[in-house]
Every structure is written in structure tokens, then in C-alpha cells.
């Protein structure tokens, strides 16, 4: 595949690192000192030019490219580059990185002529939400911008008998969710109504964020549900994190040092409580009982601020701390000083783009159980033999449809729902059956 990457920053170079072995890469960037290290390390072509220049896009051979990735840190450059690329190569797959949620929404509505839009802020927010989400969960993945979650749970002793120890058809399964898989002694089955969840099993559940949280509460009654998270920093990153957590039903407090920005955040997020404070004032932390929070996320503008604030929060008793990494080296610093989870926005963004590059039609691929099972996110073709069938009538061939996305909204279909052409389908399947599933849909 011929791939063109605009932007050789952290995102661009992570993408290059992942894709260089199998594909022919051309990288465009304005800065020689960013291009040179790439050119020495990998076998690729570099062009020193502005990505928003039509000439540069032409010189890069966009007309013959299969995949075009615009991933500079500036939205406007990416937008211009993508619109030039669309003219040069109408059939190429185009991926844009943006920090603006508005563009993501536009893309989702089909009004932005790119094939895939990735936002560092949203990806980071989802990564944070995953790690806070559910203490009893082993692994979680989010789809459709957080509307669909797939969570793997370990069934502990003392789990709620409403779902455990009885046939699934009698179990009180939370609304908007279904059990995708039952894993017992490393054998996975796609469960039917007769199957019973037992202690020691592992299950894979698909559902809405609130349903997933209900599952978490059912399976681990003692640990409780996360209700109170403090986000330090109300910049674009902090706001995205706060919004994502709040949408999952978690109570979020945001601390933003700048008054004007604090006001903007408060106006933007009516469900969050926004404080205008530095976050490193011990009186404030004490007065607002920040130490009682179940988790704190540090998304301030500078890594040293995050580091100090996180350490201080730990002093005040916050048990679980997550910090956003702006500079790669900070990961080690954070971890050495006891931060529980670090999230690197550029790395998660690059991973997302790389995933997409593997198969453009499969919008997102999560891998569970050591790559034996996969969750596919596929848009059904009008020619698919399954279109028009009710879910109840579909022959099961080692795959299960967990959710569909219609008009941008996630649905958790009942058995009499009919599959329509153009539905995005989230399918859980064994790895060996992936080609089959992709073919029939």
C-alpha cells in the first residue's frame, strides 16, 4: 500500500514506526529536524514542505496513494491537506487527526469528506474512562465514541445471584446489554439461553456505558461504582475527559486555574462541577474533600504541574491517579513517583490510526483473549445475505452481533430486530472466522 503521512511529530512518527515495514511511506513536514531522524531510521521518502501546500501534496504522489493520513497538530493544516488529497486521489482512503469535537461530529454525519477522523482528546478521554470505568473489569473497549462498551469480567465470589448461578434466560441482565461470550477454563462459548454463569468464569459483555456500570456493580458488589472523579485541568483534553466520564454517569469535578476558561468549561459541561482553583492549594483540597475522590485525572498543560498536583493529591488521600503525558519521558517520571496510570495522547491517537490502516472498512478492531477473538466494527453492504433478516433467524456461525449503529446511534438489538443495509454492526467472533464475517456482511 502507498501511504502518505502529513506531519512527522509524535503521532506521525508513531504511525511511521508501525507501518514502515509493510508499506511504502512518504512523510511531509515543514521541519527538517523532525524528518531527518525518520529518514535515517526507516526506509521511506520525506518531503520538506507545508502540508497545506497543493504542490507538496502533488509531489508526494498523492494521486497514486491508497491511504492519506493528515496528522499534524494543527486542525486547519490537516483539513486543507485532506481536501487537496481528495481532489488528487478521489479513491484514496483519507484519515484526519483533529482536536475539535465539532469536526468529529461533522464526519460522523457524513458532512466532512474524509473516511476516518481521530481526535487525540477523545481517544485520550476514552483511554482514561476505560481505566477508571470498572474495577472488576479485566479489559474494556469502547466503540462508537463511547456509546458501546465491551467489557470482560472475571466472576468473583459473592457476585449477585440475579445474574450468576442461573440460566441466562432467567437472569436479570441489565437493559441495553448482552453476554457475548462465556469463557470457562480457557474455552470460549457463545452462550445460549440455557448456559449458566458460574463463579470463576469470565464473561464478555457488550452494552451501553450505564449497562456496563450496572454489570460492574452486580459482579463486584463490595467495590461499588465509581461516583466521584476529579479532573485537574479544564483545557481541551481535560474537558474531553470530563465530558466522557460524565456521559458514563460518573460525577465529575473539574479544577481549572484560569477563571475565564473555568467559566467556559462550566458553560460547556452543565453536569460537571467546575472549580476555579490552582489544584495545588492545600486549603482548597481540604475544604472540597478532594481526598475523598475515588480517582483523580491530571490533564494540566504542563507535565511538571501534573506531576506535582498528582503527588499532592496522593498526599491528600486520593487512591487512584491517572496522568496525561505530554512528553514521552514523563511516563517514567510519573510511574516512579506512584501515578497509577499514564496516558499518552499522541500514542493512543497513533494506535487508533494504525488500527484503521490495517483494514479501512473495519473501523475499529479490538482484540480479546490473546488475539483468539476479535470484535469487528463493520458497515453492512446492501448485497449482504443478512440484510433484511431478523437477528433471531440468522444462522450462527461462530459469531454474534452485539450492537448496531444506525444514524450515528447505538442500538442493542432484540431478537426480532431486522438488519438494514448501511447499519454499522459490532460483531464478536473467533479470529479464524473474521474473513467469513467480513464476506457475509
Amino acid at each position, binding site marked *: 500500500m502507498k501511504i502518505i503521512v502529513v506531519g512527522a511529530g509524535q503521532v506521525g512518527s508513531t504511525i511511521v514506526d508501525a507501518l514502515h515495514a509493510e508499506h511504502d511511506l512518504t512523510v511531509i513536514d515543514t521541519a527538517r529536524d523532525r524528518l531527518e531522524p525518520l529518514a535515517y531510521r526507516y526506509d521511506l521518502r520525506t518531503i520538506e514542505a507545508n502540508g497545506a501546500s497543493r504542490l507538496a501534496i502533488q509531489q508526494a504522489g498523492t494521486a497514486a496513494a491508497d491511504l492519506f493520513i493528515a496528522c499534524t497538530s494543527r486542525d486547519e493544516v490537516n483539513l486543507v491537506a485532506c481536501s487537496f488529497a481528495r481532489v488528487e486521489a478521489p479513491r484514496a482512503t483519507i484519515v484526519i487527526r483533529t482536536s475539535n469535537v465539532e469536526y468529529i461530529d461533522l464526519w460522523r454525519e457524513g458532512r466532512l469528506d474524509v473516511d476516518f477522523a481521530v481526535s487525540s482528546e477523545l481517544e485520550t478521554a476514552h483511554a482514561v474512562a476505560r481505566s477508571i470505568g470498572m474495577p472488576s473489569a479485566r479489559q474494556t473497549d469502547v466503540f462508537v465514541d463511547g456509546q458501546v462498551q465491551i467489557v470482560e469480567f472475571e466472576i468473583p465470589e459473592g457476585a449477585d445471584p440475579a445474574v450468576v448461578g442461573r440460566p441466562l434466560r432467567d437472569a436479570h441482565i441489565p437493559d441495553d446489554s448482552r453476554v457475548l461470550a462465556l469463557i470457562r477454563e480457557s474455552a470460549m462459548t457463545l452462550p445460549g439461553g440455557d448456559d449458566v454463569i458460574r463463579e470463576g468464569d469470565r464473561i464478555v459483555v457488550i452494552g451501553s456505558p450505564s449497562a456496563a456500570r450496572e454489570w460492574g456493580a452486580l459482579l463486584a458488589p463490595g467495590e461499588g461504582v465509581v461516583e466521584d472523579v476529579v479532573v485537574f485541568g479544564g483545557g481541551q483534553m481535560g474537558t474531553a475527559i470530563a465530558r466522557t466520564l460524565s456521559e458514563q454517569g460518573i460525577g465529575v469535578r473539574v479544577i481549572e486555574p484560569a477563571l475565564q476558561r473555568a467559566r467556559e468549561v462550566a458553560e460547556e459541561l*452543565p453536569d460537571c462541577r467546575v472549580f476555579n482553583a490552582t489544584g495545588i492549594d492545600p486549603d482548597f483540597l481540604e475544604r472540597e474533600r478532594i481526598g475523598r475522590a475515588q480517582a483523580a485525572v491530571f490533564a494540566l498543560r504542563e507535565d511538571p504541574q501534573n506531576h506535582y498536583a498528582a503527588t499532592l493529591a496522593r498526599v491528600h488521600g486520593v487512591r487512584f491517579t491517572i496522568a496525561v503525558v505530554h512528553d514521552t519521558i514523563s511516563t517514567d517520571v510519573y510511574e516512579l513517583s506512584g501515578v497509577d496510570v499514564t496516558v499518552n495522547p499522541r500514542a493512543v491517537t497513533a494506535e487508533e490510526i494504525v488500527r484503521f490502516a490495517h483494514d479501512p472498512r473495519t473501523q475499529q478492531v479490538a482484540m480479546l483473549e490473546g488475539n483468539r477473538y476479535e470484535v469487528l466494527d463493520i458497515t453492512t453492504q446492501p448485497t449482504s445475505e443478512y440484510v433484511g433478516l431478523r437477528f433471531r433467524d440468522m444462522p450462527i456461525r461462530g459469531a454474534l452481533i452485539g450492537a448496531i449503529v444506525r444514524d450515528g446511534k447505538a442500538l442493542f438489538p432484540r431478537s426480532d430486530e431486522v438488519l438494514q443495509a448501511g447499519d454499522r454492526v459490532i460483531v464478536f467472533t473467533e479470529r479464524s472466522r473474521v474473513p467469513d464475517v467480513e464476506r457475509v456482511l
Partner: protein
Amino acid sequence: MSPDGRAARIGGRARIAIDVAGALGLTGTLLAYLSLSSLVPTVVAVGYGEPFWPFLAAGAIAGGLGLGLARLGRRSRGPIGFREGYLVVSLTWLLAALYAGLPYILSGEPQLSHPMDAFFEGMSGFTTTGATVVTDVESLDRSILIWRQLSQWLGGMGIIVLALAVLPRLRIGGRQMFESELPGPEVNQLAERIRDTARRLWLLYIGLTLALIAALLVVWLTGLDDALTPFDAVGNALSTMPLGGFATDNRSLEPFAPVTQWIVVAFMALAGVNFALLYRALVRRDARAIRRDEEARLYGLLLVVGSALVFTELVHADLFSGATAVRQAVFQTTSLMTGTGFAITDYASWPTVTLMAMIALMFVGASAGSPSGSVKIVRHLLVGRILRRELRQTIHPELVLPIRLNRQPVDERTLRAVLAFVVLYIGIFVIGAGLLAIDARIADLDLGVTDAIAASAGTLGNVGPGLGFAGPMGSYAPFSDGSKLVMALLMWVGRLEVLPVLVLLTRGYWRV
């Protein structure tokens, strides 16, 4: 040497920063056009064979004065600015009241021809207050009656809003003058151009008035109400839609049948809704616009709760029962809350608890963007939210809590203006009541505490009747001239929502 002194040496002329000539000119233009309205009572007078020359003469005087002022304004160049707007609005309403009083003086009508009475009645008309100095309404000429009603109807939607809608391009720059007459968060979003907005509002206003007249005429035609005449139908419709309160009968709306009173209640309640929302609901068929609006919802809720409370009190005091009690409670609550001032019984004789409720209702008002006066629902809503925020911030001082209205954040400047308005409103009300009490003492007039309070609240809130001798079936005639002047000024200040008038009293307004 003081800075002022230095300025005087450099040039005295620069000290007044307001383009007074331009403002007078625009005021004159508005007055000249407004003077055409005297043609309506002239026609009525000719029709009924009554003297018509007082109206023609009043129109000629106002027109001549207006044109003279307009000529003065030619000396100034450029459009009327933001700052001149306050002067224009305040002066226009003052002159409109004087103009409305001219026919009363010229007609020699004994109840109205005293200049202070005429000014009071004129101001009460244009500001849609509905307080009257007339004791025997029915003895007035039909043409005079129609002029009283018409002055309310013209003032309801605002003189300048009317001018913007019908006149050729005026030298009015922005929306500020429009907003001082018809404030409201939704009002200026109806159209891109303020002229189109003004037109739509006036067309809706005319349409609703015609609908009310038609409904009342149907009642008359079907003989459901023996007391109702076509003249009453038109006359009372002209004072219902602007939430005015002048009636064509001595006993306000008491003589009419329940069905007539219910129709009037329905239109009073409707006229108390923000007209921009009414436009969207009735013309654009978007009924959700009203249901989703927080102010409209609170307005509806207060009408229901207020009526229910008054109903309970009436039944408890054994004054009315059953359907009559419901009608009395709903009518009086709606009438006082919206600032109309109609009555279907002499509620001034009701027990103290109910009277207190009546006085409290005078401070409520209807929605912003309606012809009602008083504090208005949206300000109550915002003040409530400000207070709730203060309570929350007492515990969490760093908490940032934007105040929202219909989910949109309201900026802090607006909130400050709302607080300032409420404080000033209450302050002016207290001063007004105090002045009335003092003046009554000097004039040896029997004015009780509640009467002074009700008279001040009733005129400042553009409600109309007070209590005691100035109650719904009485008149303001016994007050001294000084008290009448005070109350006329209260109406003026209340109609223009206090701030535009008070701004004129600051030094900073006139200076550079």
C-alpha cells in the same frame, strides 16, 4: 485646578457629549407621526355626533411641535447613537403622555380637563397602566372613551417599536431603543432586521386584538351577554391586549356575563406570554417554543398557583363558592399578575390576607417581551437562581456556576443588571409609597398604609387600580396634584423599565 475647570477653559461647548438636537429631532419625528393617531377618535366623534375638534386640535398641536423639533434635529448629522437612545425613549414617552392628555383638556370634560388629571390619564393610557381619575366612566363621550382605550393599545407594544414597523427608515442605529420598550431574551431573534421583527410583533398584536373583538362580537350576536355592546367589545379588546385596564363601564368588567369574562381572561393570559414565543407558536406553528421556555412555564405555573391560593382564600372567607369562586380567583389573579387591572368585583373589600396576595401579585408581572409591566417573570427566575448560586458558593467558594436560562448561559453583566433593576424597582416603589403617604397627610386625605403601598405598586407596575378609594371600582381623583404627578412619573419610570430613565439623571450620561 480641577479637571472640570480646565475643560471649561478649553471650551465649554464640548462639555455636553449628547447630541441633544439629534435626539430632539428624532423625538419630534416620532411625535409627528404619533399625532396622526388622533384621526381615529375624530372619526368616532363625527360618527357619534360628538365634538371632534379637540382631537384635531390635539393632533395639530402635537404634529406641529413634532415637526418643529424634527427641524431642530436637521442640524445634527449622522444616526442617533446608543447614548442618545435613552433620551429619545424617555422624552418620547413623556411627550406621548402629554399629547394623550391634550384632548381631555380641550374637550372641557369636567372629570378630565384639569391639566394634572389630563396628564395622569394620558400617562396611564400610554403606559398601559389603567389607573384613572374618572369616577363616572359612562358619562364620558364615546370619542373620549375610544381615545383612552386607543392610547393604551398604542402604548402596549411600544411607540418606538410601532414607529420602527411602519415608518420609513428612521435614523435609529441599533436595537437598544427597541429593547428598552420591549425587553426580552427571545424578542430580537425573530428576524435579521429589526424592522421586520417590529412588523411581525405588531401584526401579531393586531391579529390577536381582532380575534378578541371577533370573539366578543360572537358573544354579543348570540345574545349570551345582555350587557355587552359592540362598543364595549372593541373598547375592552383595545385595553385587554396591551394589558391596560381602562374599561368602558364604571364597574370595570363586573356587569358582563361569565362567558365574556372568561374570554377576556384567556386573552389576558395570552398577552402575558413573550410575543416572540407567541409568534413562533401561532404563526410558525411551533407550539413547543412556549412549552420549552422556562419563563413561559413559570408564568403558567404562577397563574395556576396564584389562582388556587386566591380561590382557597375566597372559599375560606365565605365570599364566593363553586364556579363563581373559580372565576373570581382566576380573573383577579390573571388581571393583577399581568398588570391589566380589570376587576369583576370590588376586591378592595376582600379580607386582608387576600389583599396582601393581590399586592404581591402586582410585583410579579408577566413575561418579558409582553406588554406587561412590573418586575416580570424572567427577572424573578434569574434572581432566584442568583440566590441559589450564592448559597452554593458559600460552601464552595471556588465553584464556578454559570446561570442558565433555557440552557443558555446568561452573562454576568446581564445578571448584575437584573439585580440592579430589582433593587431600584423596590427602592422607587418604597419612595413612591412614602411620597404618597406624606402628600396625603399634607392634603388631609384618608390614605391607609395598604392603600399607599397599593397605589405606588399599582402605578409603578403599570397595573392600574390600587386599594381603598383608588380601588378597582373607585378612582385616583381624590389624590392631590402632587400625588398625581408622583404617580404619573412612577408609571413612566415603570413602563421604561427604570434604568433608561435613571441613566438620564447621572452626570456621566451628559458628560464626555
